[in-house]
Every structure is written in structure tokens, then in C-alpha cells.
């Protein structure tokens, strides 16, 4: 298991960044940290369902992102990763969504922003990269039009040449080899990988401080996936922006991230620096995820293990203790009795599990 964290990382300047990262105080332990770019505190997002009832999609989510940090949010599908990331820019339909808790970005409270301030934030200081590049762009507009309007929405004073120059710069930074030609094209004339570079270009055209990438490579080929992850890492290194990377792929986390939040059914179940998480995963769910991920180097095991069962509906488990109980190999009666809080393990490592000690014993015996 430990091999994964040391596995080949993309880009050369990683270690330097990790070094600075480890010197900083952790946002989780020290909530007053000045260096946090984004702080999410006790976030609850609920959607209006049938018959005016409100269903929580995400509960008690707590995390922070520092400047220049790449934070990974990982978990199976429908565990609340995207709901969390959309909430940072309040992209959910405001009429059928209720937010509780707080999200503070660069000192300002997201939930008290006026519509105008919110608009300035979106595509300005925060850039967003969506999952499916084929449908994320308007099919009837050229790439150039879609880039230019993003500049115009935020910087009204620029002249024509300046707008053009920043479009080309953004596309180049996103890894385009021929930005001028791309600008003339319509989305259907570009491949999926090229389109995702365009989407990245749109996200960073106004020099954001934070980039949120929601499964940016899931819809693409593996080879293109690698190139794009390299582009994202390069952006962090060149521009010093923070990145939130949402993925279901532990391999991507290992290559890209400084810190990881593991989510399950609307809650963060484990939070740790990436090396720590891969070396000492504590929550049974994290352990399951890692056991299901092929190591990046060394021998591939003949069979990868899987987590038994599938993600249940949130409504079936809410309020009845640990949400992972139905799939957990270490489940005990006490797990189902009360709400489980985050247990602190090391200085910057926490897990939402009350049987950490027993699980540790069990693992020792097993090995």
C-alpha cells in the first residue's frame, strides 16, 4: 500500500510544493488560519424533493484549501462530491436548494454575496471545469466567441487586441498547440481532449485564484487524461493557483494532490495529506477504495478487491449511525447507535469511525 504514495508523480516541481505545504498549519485543526484560500465549514446542502420535503445531499462537510494547494475530493459516484463543489459557486438552482454552514473564499462569505458579486466571482476569481467537455460548450458558437464573452463579462475596459491576446494566452496555458486556429472552430470540429483544454482555457482566462475541476478527465481517454492532469499541475506551478480536484480515481489523487478528503454518502469520512492517507488509511471505506485501486508501479495483483454492495440511498441510512455500516467488514452494534463524529488521529489526519483502534488491531493480526 505504501508504494502508491511514492509512485511516479507528474511534473518536476512537486516536491518543492509539498515541502511548503507541510510547513503550513492545517486549516482543519486551526480554523483561524489566515492562509486558507477557501474554507468550508459545516456545509449542509439540501434539495427540495417531492411534496415540498427537503433532502440533505451533503451534511457537515468541513475542509479548507490553501493557496497553491491541490485538494482532492474522492469517492464513489453520488457521494456528494459534485454537490459540494457546485455549492462553492452556488451553482445549484437557488429556488430548490438550501445551504447551511459557511463557505468563505478569500475572506468573503459566499452565501451573503449579492447576485452581482456572485457573478463577478464566477469565472473571475474562481474557475470551474466540468466533467463532460462535449456538452459543456455551446454547439452553435465558435470557441473564440465563448472565450471572448468570458473576458467581456469580467473585464469591460479591454481593447479588442488585448482580449484576443488573453484568449490566446489562456488556450496556450491549457495546452493548445494552435490557439488561433482553434478560436475559429465550432465545438463539433474539435476532439474531446481539445474541448477539455478549451474548457480549462475558459476557466483560467480571467486568472482565477481557485480552480475547481469536477472529474475533468473522466469522459476522456487515458492518454489524454495524463496530458490534461499535467496541464493542471503545470498551472498550479506556474500561476500558484489553488485547485480542487474531484475524482473517483485514487490513482489520480496519488499523482496530483497534496491533501485528500474522502467522501461517502454526503459526508467526509477521512481527511489527510496524500502521503499519510496512502501510507496509513484508517477508515474502512478508504481502505476499501485503496484496495480496489491498482498500484501505479510494481506488480499488479491478480485480482483487485472490491467493496461489497453498492452505495445505498442517503434516505435509507440518514440518522442511523455510521453511513458505511451496511458495507463495512468491521461493523459492530455500536456503529449504528449514534451519529459518528470525526475522530482525530494524527495532527492533520481524521476519520469518521469509532472502531479505529479495533480495526488497527485487526489489521495487525491479519498481516
Amino acid at each position: 500500500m505504501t508504494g502508491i504514495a511514492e509512485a511516479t508523480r507528474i511534473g518536476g516541481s512537486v516536491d518543492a510544493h509539498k515541502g511548503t505545504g507541510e510547513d503550513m498549519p492545517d486549516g482543519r485543526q486551526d480554523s483561524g488560519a489566515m492562509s486558507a484560500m477557501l474554507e468550508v465549514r459545516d456545509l449542509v446542502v439540501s434539495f427540495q424533493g417531492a411534496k415540498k420535503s427537503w433532502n440533505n445531499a451533503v451534511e457537515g462537510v468541513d475542509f479548507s484549501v490553501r493557496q497553491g494547494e491541490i485538494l482532492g475530493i474522492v469517492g464513489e459516484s453520488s457521494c456528494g462530491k459534485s454537490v459540494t463543489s457546485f455549492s462553492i459557486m452556488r451553482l445549484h438552482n437557488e429556488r430548490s436548494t438550501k445551504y447551511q454552514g459557511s463557505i468563505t473564499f478569500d475572506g468573503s462569505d459566499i452565501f451573503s454575496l449579492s447576485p452581482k458579486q456572485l457573478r463577478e466571482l464566477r469565472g473571475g476569481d474562481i474557475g470551474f471545469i466540468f466533467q463532460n467537455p462535449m456538452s459543456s460548450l455551446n454547439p452553435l458558437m465558435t470557441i473564440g466567441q465563448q472565450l471572448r464573452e468570458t473576458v467581456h463579462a469580467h473585464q469591460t475596459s479591454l481593447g479588442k487586441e488585448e482580449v484576443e491576446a488573453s484568449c490566446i494566452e489562456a488556450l496556450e496555458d491549457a495546452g493548445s498547440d494552435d490557439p488561433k486556429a482553434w478560436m475559429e472552430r465550432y465545438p463539433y470540429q474539435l476532439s474531446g481532449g481539445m474541448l477539455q483544454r478549451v474548457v480549462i482555457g475558459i476557466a483560467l482566462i480571467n486568472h482565477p485564484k481557485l480552480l475547481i475541476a469536477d472529474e475533468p478527465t473522466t469522459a476522456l481517454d487515458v492518454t489524454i487524461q495524463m496530458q490534461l492532469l499535467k496541464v493542471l499541475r503545470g498551472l498550479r506551478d506556474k500561476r500558484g493557483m489553488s485547485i480542487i480536484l474531484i475524482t473517483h480515481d485514487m490513482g489520480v489523487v496519488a499523482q496530483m494532490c497534496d491533501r485528500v478528503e474522502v467522501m461517502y454518502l454526503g459526508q467526509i469520512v477521512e481527511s489527510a495529506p496524500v502521503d499519510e492517507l496512502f501510507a496509513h488509511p484508517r477508515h474502512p471505506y478508504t481502505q476499501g477504495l485503496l484496495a480496489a485501486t491498482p498500484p501505479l508501479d510494481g506488480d499488479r495483483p491478480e485480482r483487485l478487491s472490491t467493496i461489497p454492495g453498492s452505495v445505498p440511498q442517503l434516505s435509507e441510512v440518514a440518522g442511523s449511525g455510521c453511513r458505511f455500516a451496511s458495507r463495512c467488514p468491521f461493523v459492530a452494534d455500536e456503529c449504528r447507535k449514534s451519529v459518528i463524529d470525526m475522530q482525530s488521529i494524527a495532527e492533520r489526519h481524521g476519520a469518521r469511525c469509532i472502531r479505529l483502534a479495533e480495526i488497527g488491531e485487526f489489521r495487525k493480526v491479519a498481516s
Partner: protein
Amino acid sequence: MGRYVMKRLLSAVPVLMIVGIIAFALSHLSGGDPARVVAGNDATTEQVEAIREQMGLNASLPNQLWTWFVNMLHGDLGYSYILNEKVTPTILSHVFPTLSVALFGELIALAIAIPLGVLAADKHGRLADKIVLAFATLTTSLPSFLAGLLLMILFVLQLKLLPASGFVYPSDDFAGYITHLILPAVSVATLQIALISRMSRSSMIDALGSDYIRTAAAKGLPRSKQLWGHAFKNSSIPILTIVGQSFGELIAGAIVVETVFNVPGIGQLVVNSILRRDYQMIQGIMIFVALVFIIVNLITDVLYAVIDPRIRERSF
């Protein structure tokens, strides 16, 4: 682009042929003798026979169809034995008022229906949406001629605001042309408003739910830009489709409404032909309107290609 237009033109040929066959069959499959109808009840057998020869009814049915079809392609829609006039020039002399009413009505409908549809989609599920939907159901239920009668009672008899009836050519008096057009045009617009507002609402709801609108929101574009710059562009193809498909109904509405407001257009020609039992003329009008319908749909096909680069690409 030229190739695309050619392809569309060619695809209209089978429809045109079927239109011709149906129209031909209508007048030749009835039990009665068209020559007898034209000659009238008092005519002698010899007179009927002479008319039958003149009408070409003695040739075999396929021959008649062929002659008739070739004539149609040459723009000859037949001969009215009752007026002793060719059908085509008579129709053409009545086209301008009808087209004025229809196109003015379409403009009014678009100007009202599209903003309503976009508003309803933006406020989907809320009060404004429900009001638009109710309004659309109401206007679907109001036939254009009835709308015309009711508008006449209201604006002409009660409020005395607008001229009651008639038609003024724009070359004579442009202001008069417009004021005489308002009531008939609003009357034919009712059904179009219902169709177009429903279509723009539902296609806008689809468009607003799509990923590129989410991208537009995440880029920080204002709502107005998301609606009109992004979503509406993508909704315009279904809207164009409904406009094309309902064009026949628009003309039909104009024809009926003309009789309410005494507009000397195709409608008046239809009604007079009914009174004169001049079915050659009505048949000619039927084909003429079908041709206009086909042409309008060709134009909408070309407009698709103007709006959507993917359609343009496929046609090259």
C-alpha cells in the same frame, strides 16, 4: 450551401408529386361529371360533350394526370370555366392582401410569443409560467375568425378605434395599410401565439437544463446573456420548425379572417368561388397554398443551416 439548397429542393419533388396526385384525385374520383357541373343543369348533351372535350376529360386518366401535372409545373393551375379566366393570374392578383395579413400576423405572433415563452421557461414552475401556459391554451381554443369577430365588436363598435373593414394598398396610403391590417393580423396571430409560445417555452426549458448553460453561469455571464445569447440560439431551431409547420394554418387562418374584415384577398376569392361553385378555382388555390407551404419549409431548412454549423457542414 448551394448543394444543400439543391438537395432540399430535390427532396421537395416527391411531396410536390403527391400533392398533385391528391388534388387531381379529389376532382376526378367523385361520382359526378365535372363537365355537367360546369355546363349547368339546363345544358344539352351536345353542350356537355363539347365542354368535356374542352376540359380534356376524354383522354385516359393517366394522360389527364400527366397533362395536368406538366401544366402545374409550368405554373398553370387550370382554367376556371365559370369565370372564363386562367386560375393562376386570378390567384396572383389576390395574393398581396392575404400575404400582408399572414406575414404581419406572424410578426405580431413572434414578437409576443417568443418573449412569453422565454419568460415562462426562465420562471419554470412559477406563477408567470402558469399564466403563460393558461394564455396559450386559451389562444389555442380561439379560432382566428372568432377572434376577428370579437375584436371587431370591441375595437370597432365599442371603442371606435380602428377601421372596421377593407384593405388599403401601401402605394396609396401606407398608414391606412397598417391600420387596416392590425385587426386581421392580430386575429390570425392568436393560434400562432399559442403554438410558438409553447414551443419556445419547452425548447428553452430543455436548453436551460443543458451543460453549456451551466458553463455560461460558471463563467459569470448575466442571466440575460445565458437566456438570449446561449439558450435562445439553441431553441431557435425548434421554434423555426413550428413556424414552418404551421404556415399552412396561418394562411388558412388569413383566408377565413379576410371574410370577416372584407379584405380582397384569396379568402374572398375562395368564398366567391364557393358561391359560384367554381371548384377549379378552389382547387387551384389549394395547390397554390400547398406550394407556398413547401417553399416556406424549404426556406426554414436553409435557415437551419444558417443557425447550426453542423447542418451546414453535413451539406457540403
